[in-house]
C-alpha cells in the first residue's frame, strides 16, 4: 500500500513535468499540411492524417499489414486505423479533402495542432487497385520551423492478389477485386492478372499491369491510363 502511494506521489510530479514539456512543444508541432496527387490516372481515397508518439506505426515495410491497414488498403476505410491511433493517445484528422483526391488535385492546406505528439503519418488507398496505398510513415516532426516537402511512394499491402478485376464494393478484407473505379475508364471481362502475392508483407508496389482490351484480356485496367511511377503524392508540411 505504501509502495503504491509512493509510486503515485512520484507519478504526480512526473506527470506535471510531462504536461509542462508538452505545453512547450505545442507550438513546435503546429503544422500546416497540403497533399498533391502527382499521377495522371490514379485517385486517392479519403486520407488519414495522424500524429502520434514514436512507438506508434500505421504500418512497417517488410512486415505484414494489420487488419486496420488492410481495411484501408483494400477498401479505403480509415475508421479502424484512426481508432488505433486514438487508442494509442494520438490525434487524427480524417478526410481533410472531404472527398476522394482525383488525379492532379490537391488537398488544400489545413492546420493540424499535433499537441505533444512527435510523429506524423499520412495514408490513403490508390484506386483503381486491389490493395495499393501510399504513405508517410511515422515521420519525426522537426522542431525547427520551416517548410518540408516529401514525395511518397505506393506500397502493396500484400493482403490481396493483384488480379486487377473490378468488382464494385469488394473493399472488405477477404473480398477479392478492385472495389471502385473513380476514373470510369476501366474495362470488363478480364481473366485476372495475379492469383496471389509472392510477398505478403508490405512492399513497394510493382505497379499496375493493365492491358489494351477493354472487354477481355487479363486485366480490367487500361495500360495507358492506370499505371503509375513513383512518387505518387507530394506532401508539404509547414512547421510553424
Amino acid at each position, binding site marked *: 500500500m505504501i509502495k503504491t502511494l509512493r509510486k503515485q506521489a512520484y507519478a504526480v510530479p512526473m506527470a506535471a513535468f510531462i504536461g509542462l514539456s508538452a505545453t512547450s512543444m505545442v507550438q513546435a508541432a503546429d503544422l500546416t499540411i497540403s497533399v498533391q496527387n502527382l499521377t*495522371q490516372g490514379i485517385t486517392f481515397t479519403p486520407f488519414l492524417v495522424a500524429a502520434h508518439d514514436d512507438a506508434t506505426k500505421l504500418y512497417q515495410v517488410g512486415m505484414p499489414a494489420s487488419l486496420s491497414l488492410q481495411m484501408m488498403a483494400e477498401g479505403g476505410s480509415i475508421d479502424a486505423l484512426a481508432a488505433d491511433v486514438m487508442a494509442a493517445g494520438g490525434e487524427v484528422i480524417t478526410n481533410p479533402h472531404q472527398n476522394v483526391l482525383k488525379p*492532379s488535385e490537391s488537398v488544400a492546406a489545413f492546420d493540424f495542432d499535433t499537441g505533444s505528439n512527435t510523429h506524423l503519418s499520412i495514408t490513403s488507398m490508390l484506386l483503381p487497385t486491389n490493395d495499393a496505398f501510399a504513405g508517410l510513415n511515422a515521420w519525426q516532426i522537426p522542431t525547427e520551423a520551416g517548410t518540408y516537402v516529401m514525395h511518397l511512394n505506393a506500397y502493396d499491402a500484400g493482403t490481396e492478389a493483384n488480379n486487377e478485376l473490378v468488382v464494385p464494393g469488394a473493399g472488405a478484407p477477404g473480398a477479392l477485386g478492385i472495389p471502385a473505379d473513380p476514373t470510369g475508364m476501366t474495362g470488363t471481362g478480364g481473366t485476372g492478372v495475379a492469383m496471389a502475392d509472392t510477398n505478403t508483407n508490405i512492399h513497394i508496389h510493382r505497379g499496375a499491369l493493365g492491358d489494351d482490351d477493354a472487354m477481355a484480356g487479363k486485366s480490367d485496367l487500361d495500360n495507358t491510363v492506370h499505371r503509375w*511511377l513513383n512518387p505518387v503524392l507530394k506532401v508539404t508540411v509547414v512547421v510553424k
Partner: protein
Amino acid sequence: MQSIKRILTMTAAVVVLASCGSDDKATVMPEPMTPEPVTYSFEVTVQNLTNNQPLSPVTVLSHAMDVSLWQLGQSASMGVEYTAEAGDNTMLISDNTNFDNASSEGLLMPGNTATLMLTTDDENNYLSIISMLVNTNDAFTGLVQYDLSQLAVGDVKSMLLPVYDAGTEGNSELAATLPGPVTGGEGFNEMRDDVDFVSRHSGVVTSDDGLTQSALDESHRFEALVAKVTIERTN
C-alpha cells in the same frame, strides 16, 4: 597637445581611407552613380539517363522568381505543349520573360551530356530546364524555378530529374504520333485529346508489354528519373 594628437589621429584615418580606394582621387566628391548591373554565370550540364529516349534540344532559362514554365495539375502552356509534343522550344523561349536562355544542338542521345552556359542577375536568379523524350507522345523532363541565388562561386549542385506528362496528347504510342527517330511521326498537334493537366508520367507501355498498337518496344521504357543535371556557378 591634445588637439595635435587628435589631428594626427584624423590624418591617419584619412590615409587609411584613401589607401582603401582603388584610385587616389580621394578628395573628389563621387558623382551619383548608376550601379553596374551585376551578372552571375552558371554552367548547366544535363545527362540523358534513359536507355533509348533521345532528348530534344535541352533548354535552360534564367528568369524572375514569379515565372513558372509549368505547374503540376495545371494546363500546359502552348510553349510547353510545343516542346513536349515536338521537341520545339521556339515558342517557349519567345513566350517567356526569360533573362537568358541556351539550348543544346540536336538530339541529346542516351548516355550523352550537354553543357550550357547561362547568365543571371539579381532580379533573374531562377533556373528552369525543359526537354522532350522524343520517342513519346508528350513526355518531358526538366526543372522549374530552381533558386540559383543559394549557390556561391564554385558551388556545384546535382539532381536527378523526373519525367512529366504534358497532358496535351493521349499516350497512344501510335507511329504517326511519335516524332522521335523510331517512326518520325507528327510532333505538334493543337488538339488536346488528353487530361489537359501536367502530371508525373506513368511510363510508356510499348508493344512488348501489352499495348499492341504501340510503335515502341521494351527498349524505350523508362523509370521515374530520366536525366541528371549538374549546376555549377562559375562567376
